[in-house]
């Protein structure tokens, strides 16, 4: 036993599920193999592995650039070397739950941009849909190939203190992070030689092939021209765009590389214009087409929406999917599952209060110390109020903003995100985590890559896992 101190200051958070320890402070079986390895390894060796992981990220160019004062500072997304381990039983449930959810959400988007039965049947109020900034009138009645709107998604899950996974957010627009799922695994392979096969960890490396297959299936051509549209090198996810394009063998294009002629999209090549059939875009709806959305956008392509409506090009994900991952719509997802599929939701929603409803606003105001309030159209962890951390003054100010337009806000009870062991200062410490598995929907169904991105709040006691606010990530192992 070379490393006895490893667990010496593992202070469990109260009322919180820990991924490694069970209630009686015994290691859960899925962690046993890895802990054996950790115990055999000296602290010096582990710290070296931590350094090595940083070096690997830098030398592979897995970085994002933060710009300030005209100077770009390259950073790596912090990585914790201890993997997060999920059992196959847990995974089976996650997988079926996400599939069910995506099926319903996709039907919902189709319905909303076509017949709108769900409004007519009184399940979701029409005004909620029309007031949502992510609802695109431009998509009404548009025929989408194979009725697939959400091809690529990254649903955020958390594990509550009852041990169950809950859906925190459905990311249905241009979710990022999948390259970190791939890179984290590559790093683990080098940090822990032999441990992955010994632990029967399911492989994630097939993701780019799966993605390519799903994209290719959308075209009738035998060899469609598929491109990845990036906002360019200043985008924080640029690394991911280059990686996915490289791993799929497709062209990485910027808006200025594309042009629309007679409602067809072409890319400007050295031997003339070449038609583009499928665009995996990592540019938001708003910036996609200056003729229809934000006129100032230089990231998109003028006329691309018209080409899309004529069916001359396929855009992935379809424009307008943001209507289904809006925080105000989230509340209705369990109802959607019942309405479209006649099934009980496999994964639960987090109890959510709509502040537009006076009784719920009152309840939330009374219990504000136990609540998180979020803007319905916000993301990235910004514009939130964490009731237990805020001062009375901050709460007062925030509530005043809420009262101006309460329907733009929702509240949720403060969650007990599960904790997982992280290697910090030579010891293991529990830190809060979430999980973003990546799902691909196509012509013949939904596939989910066995793993995903585990984000971790590296600050002690913090619940915010977003990379912009001190979060990091872990490799995620689904074991057979």
């Amino acid at each position, binding site marked *: 036993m070379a490393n006895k101190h490893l667990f010496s200051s593992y202070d469990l958070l109260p009322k919180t599920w820990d991924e490694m320890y069970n209630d009686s402070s015994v290691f859960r079986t899925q962690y046993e193999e890895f802990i054996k390895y950790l115990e055999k390894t000296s602290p010096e060796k582990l710290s070296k592995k931590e350094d090595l992981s940083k070096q690997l990220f*830098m*030398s*592979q*160019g897995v970085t994002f650039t933060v710009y300030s004062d005209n100077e770009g500072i390259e950073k790596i997304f912090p990585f914790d070397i201890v993997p997060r381990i999920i059992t196959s039983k847990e995974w089976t449930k996650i997988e079926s739950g996400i599939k069910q959810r995506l099926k319903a959400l996709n039907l919902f988007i189709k319905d909303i941009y076509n017949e709108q039965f769900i409004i007519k049947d009184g399940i979701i109020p029409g005004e909620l849909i029309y007031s949502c900034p992510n609802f695109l009138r431009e998509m009404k009645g548009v025929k989408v190939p194979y009725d697939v709107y959400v091809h690529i998604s990254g649903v955020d899950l958390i594990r509550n203190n009852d041990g169950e996974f809950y859906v925190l957010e459905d990311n249905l627009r241009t979710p990022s992070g999948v390259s970190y799922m791939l890179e984290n695994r590559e790093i683990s392979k080098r940090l822990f030689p032999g441990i992955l096969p010994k632990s029967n960890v399911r492989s994630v490396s097939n993701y780019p092939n799966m993605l390519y297959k799903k994209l290719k299936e959308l075209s009738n051509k035998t060899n469609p021209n598929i491109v990845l549209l990036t906002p360019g*090198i200043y985008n924080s996810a*640029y690394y991911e765009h*280059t*990686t996915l*394009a*490289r791993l799929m*063998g*497709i*062209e*990485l*294009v*910027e808006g*200025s*590389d594309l042009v629309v002629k007679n409602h067809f999209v072409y*890319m*400007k*090549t*050295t*031997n*003339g*214009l070449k038609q583009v059939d499928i665009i995996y875009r990592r540019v938001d709806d708003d910036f996609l087409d200056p003729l229809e959305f934000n006129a100032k956008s230089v990231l998109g392509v003028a006329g691309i929406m018209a080409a899309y409506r004529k069916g001359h090009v396929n855009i992935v994900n379809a424009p307008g999917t943001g209507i289904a991952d809006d925080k105000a719509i989230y509340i209705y997802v369990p109802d959607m599952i019942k309405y479209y599929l006649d099934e009980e939701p496999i994964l639960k929603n987090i109890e959510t209060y709509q502040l537009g409803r006076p009784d719920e606003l009152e309840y939330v105001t009374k219990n504000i110390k136990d609540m998180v309030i979020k803007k319905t159209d916000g993301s990235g962890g910004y514009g939130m109020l964490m009731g237990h951390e805020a001062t009375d003054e901050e709460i007062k100010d925030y509530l005043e903003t809420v009262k101006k337009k309460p329907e733009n806000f929702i509240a949720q009870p403060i969650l007990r995100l599960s904790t997982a062991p992280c290697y910090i200062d030579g010891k293991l410490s529990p830190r809060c985590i979430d999980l973003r598995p990546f799902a691909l929907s196509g012509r013949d169904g939904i596939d989910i890559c066995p793993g995903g991105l585990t984000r971790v709040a590296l600050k002690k006691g913090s619940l915010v896992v977003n990379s912009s606010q001190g979060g990091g990530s872990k490799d995620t192992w689904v074991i057979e």
Partner: protein
Amino acid sequence: MLSRVANNLIWLDRYMERGNGILSLLKVNYYANQDSPELFSWTPIMKTFTTYDNEFYTEDALECIDFMIFNTGNSNSILNIVTKARENARSVQEHISRELWLCINNYYLYLTNKDLPRKLEEDPVQFLEDLRKHHLIYFGTADITQERGPSYYFMNVGKFLERVILISDFTSLKLVDIGNTSDSLEKSFYWKNLLLSVGGYQLYLKTHKSTFNEEHVIRMVFQDKLFPRSVYYCINKLSGYIDQLIEANELEKNNIDFLLGKLESTIKYTTIDNINNQGLEHFISDIKEDIRNISLNINAVYFSQNN
């Protein structure tokens, strides 16, 4: 291939070639300057190879090298050149080999390591050689890992274009010094220095032994068929890659092949008497003008499809 990608590939290799050239010039001048500072000063080098509006000049070797390598205000500093090369490489990752990307990314990380400037003071020659090694690894990696096809051809177009420009600039630089002296020993120092800067000294010795004959040097630097850093060799290669691109429909003829063919024969068939009659400076400025036109034509192909 996307026009933007072609452009980035050309510039990727132009920057790497330029870096390589500047580094060897600095090393050669460092040695010479330690021997005879009155003959080999730093100011002309700084004038030719920094930003056009540069106002900083120094005759302190370490200060000069530091400025030429690390100064971010100097757009031709090695740090800036490599940063730009890396940006180009980053945006064409699906067109270059993985090894090549890792190579240039590691070079960038090496350059930005905060401990690096200390090495300059310890041993400037080792410092410059270590940097130059990254360029050699880069070209070797490209040669071994990059498939022959449009990407490789565009990269080589950039490399040989830049190399011709560098050889011409290095020669012009020395011609100024040579014109300012009537001492034949001094002149021979300058010619030797030119050979060293373009990396042809060893070959010269092998061919002509240790006697410095102006005409031999000119013939070797401009007309040698087998010396990879002669102007003729570069034009010949350039012309080959341009032909390949035209054949693969990646480049419109657009006069480029004509311009290159003309330049190639001019260099090949101009006799040394003829060069002497018109003056080497004149001969070089004609070459530079032709290269500029060729380069503009390549750009025109790129830009014409960009509207």
